[in-house]
């Protein structure tokens, strides 16, 4: 394969030479991936892969209107670049006017690391995980799980002189341990696998399986519930995905205000909670610029290369921002705000252990599963508790409880939360295919709605 940087240059040169379109954006992403999966104390699937995606976005101006064509391909043959550029330009000429048009960014020039080698990954990254797992496989608990590492390096180049590069490492380890009918889960997010401690995860799992020695069946109902960081992350990620400005402005999301307008400014809680994304958050670094080949209500192809700043979606308990690409921001008279690929919430002090100790009677969750919208007007979501619901009595965990189906809205959870824990790095289990970078607190919900019992273990 020719270097990805050369593909950017080749495509921009081909576009300039053909003269078929007014502006061109090229996005090339090199991806290296390694995976390891196991079940019942034996490896099941594994693999390594190397791939590249090249997207060519052509813009044609006709009077005041802009027209966009997008073609992308994983073909790595340099001879195919010219055809991709030509097809993209033809698509732009045939396209109706783009509703999200904005002037392309100009001129960053090549950053110092533009020409650096592109990092990869391979099965070797799992060496330490495999060693610890191998020990675990020899013990009595049954282990299931997955380790995954993806290293993506993205290059953005435009005919207006923008050159940006970012390497995104994304790693995770999830372990599900079973002992009899009891099931427990531990997960970790990691950029390069340097700090993953499988031994500690296995010890934590053993503790949790021990909590299940006593089992209590509880009916559906409203329970005081401690949501640990992973569960808070899954609910807050869904909330953040639902925070497009346009939908709220147009009255068709849960962030629309009765009587018109949006809920920006509405106080959800007196807890000093701030929900934000920040590409420079330590340990959760992610792309600090827009790179997208498809316009949505959250992102626009015209904004490619634009800086992504920290956005406080909820600040000190009040809704503070919604997502607007530049064109939508101009249309609705507000500032652009683009979500980075991470999510954090801060504002609590207590450790989860302290929150457990302060609970007279309540439930402690582990993870959530199969979360889907039930009613978009309130952002009511349904889902299941999974791999460990524990009963807290007089400040200590005394038993494992059956699983439940819940019906809850993340907005309402923020409205009703009575305590937040200290923010800590966590792996959101439900959404880890798409979102692994999260820092979240635990939340205490006085009346979490368990709609029905699930027999699932």
């Amino acid at each position, binding site marked *: 394969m020719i270097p990805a940087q050369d593909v950017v240059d080749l495509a921009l040169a081909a576009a300039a030479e053909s003269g078929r379109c007014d502006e061109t954006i090229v996005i090339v992403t090199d991806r290296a*991936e390694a995976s*390891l999966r196991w079940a019942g104390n034996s490896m099941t699937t594994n693999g390594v892969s190397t791939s590249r995606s090249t997207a060519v976005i052509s813009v044609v101006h006709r009077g005041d209107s802009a027209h966009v064509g997008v073609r992308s391909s994983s073909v790595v043959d340099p001879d195919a670049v010219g055809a991709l550029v030509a097809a993209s330009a033809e698509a732009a000429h045939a396209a109706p006017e783009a509703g999200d048009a904005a002037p392309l960014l100009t001129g960053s020039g090549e950053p110092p690391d533009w020409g650096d080698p592109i990092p990869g990954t391979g*099965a070797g990254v799992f060496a330490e995980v*495999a060693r610890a797992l191998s020990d675990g496989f020899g013990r009595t608990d049954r282990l299931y799980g997955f380790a995954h590492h993806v290293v993506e390096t993205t290059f953005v180049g435009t005919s207006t002189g923008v050159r940006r590069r970012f390497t995104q490492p994304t790693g995770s380890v999830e372990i599900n341990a079973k002992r009899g009918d009891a099931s427990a889960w531990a997960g970790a997010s990691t950029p390069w696998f340097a700090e993953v401690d499988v031994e500690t995860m296995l010890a934590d799992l053993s503790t949790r399986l021990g909590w299940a020695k006593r089992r209590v069946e509880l009916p559906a109902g409203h329970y005081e519930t401690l949501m640990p960081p992973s569960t808070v992350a899954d609910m807050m990620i869904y909330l953040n995905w639902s925070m497009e400005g346009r939908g709220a402005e147009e009255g068709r999301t849960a962030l629309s205000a*009765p009587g*018109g307008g949006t809920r920006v400014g509405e106080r959800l809680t007196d807890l000093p909670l701030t929900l934000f994304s920040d590409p420079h958050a330590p340990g959760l670094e992610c792309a600090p610029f827009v790179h997208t080949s498809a316009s949505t*209500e959250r992102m626009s192809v015209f904004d490619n290369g634009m800086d992504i700043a920290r956005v406080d979606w909820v600040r000190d308990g009040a809704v503070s921002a919604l997502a607007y690409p530049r064109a939508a921001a101009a249309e609705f008279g507000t500032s652009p705000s683009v979500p980075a690929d991470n999510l954090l919430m801060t504002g609590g002090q207590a450790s989860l252990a302290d929150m457990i100790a302060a609970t007279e009677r309540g439930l402690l969750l582990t993870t959530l599963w199969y979360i889907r919208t039930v009613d978009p007007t309130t952002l*009511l979501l349904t889902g*299941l508790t999974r791999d460990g619901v524990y009963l807290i009595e007089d400040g200590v965990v005394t038993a494992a409880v059956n699983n439940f189906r819940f019906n809850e809205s993340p907005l309402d959870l923020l409205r009703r939360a009575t305590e937040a824990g200290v923010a800590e790095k966590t792996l959101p289990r439900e959404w880890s295919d798409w979102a692994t970078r999260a820092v979240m607190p635990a939340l205490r919900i006085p009346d979490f709605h368990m709609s*029905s019992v699930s027999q699932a273990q």
Partner: protein
Amino acid sequence: MSSREIDEEFLALPRHRLADAAFSAATATGASYADLRIHAITTEIVHLRDGELETAVLDRDIGMAVRVIVDGTWGFASHAGLTPDIAAESARHAVGVAVTLAALNAERIELADEPVYPGVEWVSDYRVDPFSVPTAEKIAVLQDYSGRLQAADGVDHVTAMVTSVKEQTFYADTFGSSITQQRVRTLPVLDAVAVDAAAGRFESMRTLAPPTGRGWEAVVGDPHSGGHWDWAAELAELPVLLAEKTKSPSVVAGPTDLVIDPSNLWLTIHESIGHATEYDRAIGYEAAYAGTSFATPDKLGVLRYGSPVMNVTADRTVAHGLATIGYDDEGVAAQSWDLVRDGIFVGYQTDRVFAKRLGAARSTGCSYADSAHHVPIQRMPNVSLQPGSEDLSTADLIARVDNGIYIVGDKSWSIDMQRYNFQFTGQRFFRIRAGELDGQVRDVAYQAVTTDFWNSMEAVGGAATWRLGGAFNCGKAQPGQVAAVSHGCPSALFRGVNVLNTVEESGR
């Protein structure tokens, strides 16, 4: 199988040279078995918002995967490059992965036998290649459809989307099979929203046209002019139904008799039968992610899954099915078999490894990978509820209900990790009073335990009510893979299913 042929561009790839290079390298470095798959997926997504183009992207993903068995352990490697050198290098990588991770493998990999199919081709049955239709024409059709909805009273916003996919594979293995295939699929969706800004409420309603293993004929025309779907009727009806829904009363929660239309029931089948009868799940291979299944091997042939009118088949052969194929990603020919017969659980879905583990003579042909860069796993075939022998119409089923709801169209879905407890919503909920439809209700969800639900099925409609629904986005495995799958079913009558009021569920 259609009279169409595989695209020349795909046939021109050095398929056999890549396979030869990979197999030579694999066997030379210690592999006892190897297969090679060239996998190309071309996807075009066109999305309009309120009649304006939001995005139109055409993507072609192509790559090559080599899978090997070394001393009873799998190894897998893939690459975007399509040269014999890269094929050989990928084979060596795959062997390296198998050797590196062999210590973690406690179960020796063995494959169920299958006849060898050298040099065969298969193409799905479609009339108009969606990639022969210019993007501008696709946009124009969606603008027309959006405009019809937007022009109607009470419709404030419309989204319109069509996704077109062409999937091409070349599969070869060291047993001697070499199989080249091509299929297309199409997903058209329009969604209309009515906003009551003063009250801070909104309602939406989506078209019922299903995703299908057809070409552009699924998006244009009507059955009278050779099309697949009556778009004129659907687009005319939808705003009227949406306006009625916005004025409808909120449902009264509690046990309720339901007549469920195939446009909703397909998804309940998918979640509560399709996934529950995957053998790999049932024995724990998805335990940490997608989950396991209550339908464990000890229940095979014993468990009363549902009432005696419940007959469920699996197939990879039904015309226009999204999981329909000639041969799976392990070179196993497509088949059809029973999962539930007369209400009893009788069958699983398998690939070649899990067929062997189950003690079956042959795989049911359910191996699939969603790209060159993913390992083939056991994926769902088309899973369908069979119509009744008695030729009951949907109206006949409704006539049996004194006080109930007729549910049309799918919307939200969720089921637990052993496939017991599920909750679904829908697009349209018609109240049934004294055996007849009596307007709509809103805020409906139904919640049940899988076997309770299927045992409450009193009657199924006849063949005239049978429709094929489905999805493009069925998820499974880690790294996550998506697959398209169809589910056919008749209308069916269920007694005493727990209906929730979703406003009450939110505590309001």
